[in-house]
């Protein structure tokens, strides 16, 4: 296994500790139970936002703790949901009395652990569940779709509303709207390697890609031969638009997310392809985000998220944010 690592068991704590040192102006790291919180106390009356999930998706979520976004993040082991005591401790640490909104990605493990954390926490709280991955066929009989990259957008946009005094209910409502307005689909060229496993999660041929891959290297819609970027991007966008059905000239945010191992040059090329295709379909791109925000360790690949934007969403997207991984306006 080719990683900067000392012992697999220490991997997460050592990395968190480095993260804490590198960004001590913005956040602090607690270990046992582990969570990342803002350096400064949540101001009175402000709803606290807490997210979390398995590690391996960095900068999500620890990199999004700070002004205008999360109040705390609970990192689980690599690709394993965090435990309820982390959520409980984080909530107790950050809640200023206005309540806590848990932002949870739609996986059984995350749902159950966040639920238990919420039950263990005595303060006022609510939860939203993101499920933006259109690669998964939705059905009322199943768990539904996976929560993936749009979680970043939910955290940013609701973070702004919370910062500006939105109530717990209002924050939950906005978060659910953003989630409903967003669709994501990803493709992987290579696998990732979980430190504890020490070997790639899946095998993939030299000319193959996994279309519709999950952010843990889970199988997607199909295994295909690799294709030119324009074809891949076109197929991804078809799946998303089919699902979101934006109005003619509806404003959108286009988010090209790297899975971790794909160079920025390629992500910008994907962004260019996507802009061209969207333009030809009468979809207006008014905001953009390109980079590695919701990763799968060192996996090579990319996901595209489209978020339909109304004025409320745009206003909160544009608002200042100051975290380790996303910063503007301050």
């Amino acid at each position, binding site marked *: 296994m080719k990683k900067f690592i000392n012992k697999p068991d220490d991997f997460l704590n050592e990395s968190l500790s480095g993260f804490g040192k590198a960004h001590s102006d913005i956040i602090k790291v607690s270990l046992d139970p582990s969570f990342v919180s803002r350096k400064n106390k949540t101001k009175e009356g402000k709803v606290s936002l807490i997210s979390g999930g398995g590690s391996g998706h960095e900068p999500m979520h620890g990199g999004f703790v700070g002004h205008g976004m999360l109040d705390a993040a609970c990192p689980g082991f690599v690709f*394993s949901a965090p*435990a309820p005591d982390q959520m409980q401790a984080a909530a107790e640490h950050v809640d200023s009395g206005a309540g806590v909104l848990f932002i949870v990605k739609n996986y059984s493990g995350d749902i159950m652990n966040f639920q*238990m954390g919420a039950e263990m926490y005595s303060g006022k709280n609510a939860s939203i569940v993101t499920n933006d991955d259109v690669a998964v066929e939705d059905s009322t009989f199943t768990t539904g779709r996976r929560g993936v990259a749009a979680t970043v957008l939910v955290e940013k946009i609701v973070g702004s509303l919370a910062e500006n005094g939105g109530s717990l209910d209002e924050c939950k409502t906005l978060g659910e709207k953003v989630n409903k307005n967003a669709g994501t689909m990803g493709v992987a060229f290579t696998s990732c390697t979980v430190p504890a*496993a020490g070997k790639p999660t899946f095998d993939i041929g030299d000319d193959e890609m996994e279309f519709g891959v*999950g952010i843990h290297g*889970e199988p997607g819609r199909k295994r295909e031969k690799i294709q030119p970027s324009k074809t891949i991007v076109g197929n991804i966008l078809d799946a998303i638009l089919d699902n979101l059905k934006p109005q003619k000239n509806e404003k959108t945010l286009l988010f090209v997310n790297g899975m971790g191992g794909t160079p920025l040059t390629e992500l910008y090329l994907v962004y260019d392809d996507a802009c061209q295709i969207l333009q030809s379909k009468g979809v207006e791109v008014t905001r953009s985000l390109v980079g590695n925000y919701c990763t799968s360790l060192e996996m090579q690949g990319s996901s595209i998220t489209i978020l339909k934007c109304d004025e409320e969403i745009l206003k909160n997207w544009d608002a200042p944010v100051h975290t380790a991984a996303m910063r503007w306006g301050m």
Partner: protein
Amino acid sequence: MSVNFLISQAKNIQKVIDENAPEIETLDQNIGDGDHIFNIQRGLKLVIELEGTIKDLPLPKALNTIAMKVLSGIGGSSGALFGTFFISMAKSPDLDKDVDFNKACEMIIGGVKAMKERGKADVGEKTMMDVLIPVSEKLNEIKNNNSDMKQGLNEVIKIAEDRMLSTKDMLATKGRASFLGERAKGHIDPGARSSQLIIDTICKSVINQ
């Protein structure tokens, strides 16, 4: 059931799980995210490490310590589900009295019921509940009919294995495998396999006592 029994079972189970680790890992890589084996192994390690702390505690206290360790130390679906199982066990009534076979069955039945409520999965959804619910029902039957324990446990072993194998051809509607639709077919559920191994180990050890 004693604290000693719990620790020694954990050690037995650890051995069996370690022997079958590559298979369990592959199963979760096929239709999940590959961490199930590490979650289970971590959980067992943490429980066994508790030996010194809990060996002289009363059973309810010991179970509670185990529950909190499993809940906080594992993470993932397994952590929440097995944590829920032990929390329910620890809350069983009359734990200060002697825990005989029937009482132990009641505790397990209650634990599985709590897991079912937590995960909202029933039989047929391609999860560990496909093994645990039928096993729990069989234990209930053995207990109510006062059947022969050894014969009953042999039947439990058989049920666990059959139900584990039955997950192979199911579509999943709960857990990560549910995201895969048809592609999940043809693979045994990793949680069903690890649960079956756990049950197999405990039953055999009790039978041979």
